[in-house]
């Protein structure tokens, strides 16, 4: 049960993340990579800005990893999240989970990204050609 959590203002590297979760004990690894999409609700997105309350974000990510270890027989959990300005197709988040069997890896990975989006204090501002908006801020 090993965890690697990182918040970084530079490019996230999927290959390094995969390298880190691989092990002789693992049989299946599930990786989720978020990427910046060029449109949201039909509007062209120019770029994103991510802001983070870092000390709390790391604490919340550790909680989520702990919950995943409690609920599924997984071996390694990695969560990397970007801050700063991201261009289209850049990577805001990578989650990688290694387990002896694939079911646990898939379920834990899904749980971690779903919960991260609900609880981890990170905020995304979308920039359009004609304005900008903090995502989810208003009803």
């Amino acid at each position: 049960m090993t965890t690697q959590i990182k918040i970084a203002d530079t490019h996230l590297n999927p290959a390094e993340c995969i390298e880190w979760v691989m092990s002789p004990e693992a049989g299946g690894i599930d990786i989720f990579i978020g990427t910046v999409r060029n449109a949201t609700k039909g509007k062209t997105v120019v770029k994103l800005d991510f802001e983070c309350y870092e000390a709390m974000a790391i604490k919340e990510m550790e909680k989520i990893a702990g919950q995943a270890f409690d609920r599924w027989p997984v071996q390694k959990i990695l969560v990397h999240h970007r801050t700063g300005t991201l261009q289209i197709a850049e990577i805001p988040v990578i989650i990688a989970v290694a387990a002896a069997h694939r079911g646990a890896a898939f379920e834990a990975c899904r749980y971690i990204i779903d919960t991260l989006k609900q609880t981890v204090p990170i905020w995304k501002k979308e920039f359009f050609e004609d304005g900008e908006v903090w995502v989810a801020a208003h009803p």
Partner: protein
Amino acid sequence: MEVNVLAFGIAKEIFGASSIIITLTNDATVSNLKYLLEHQYPKLKQLASYMIAVNNEYALDGDTVHQHDEIAIIPPVSGG
């Protein structure tokens, strides 16, 4: 007592600063703090929701706030 409230995301724009000082009574709760914040910054009431974090943990309305706590306003998160 005076407490420092950190702000992130849209809250930073509403405050016009990355933190503000709020004066509270000594036995103030999170609920009291929210009331004062909304009074001074009515735009907070237009948010879909927001939480208060105390010492890097989400706080409940009834929790007491202490002078040297690290307090933050957490507008709806949108990471990932």
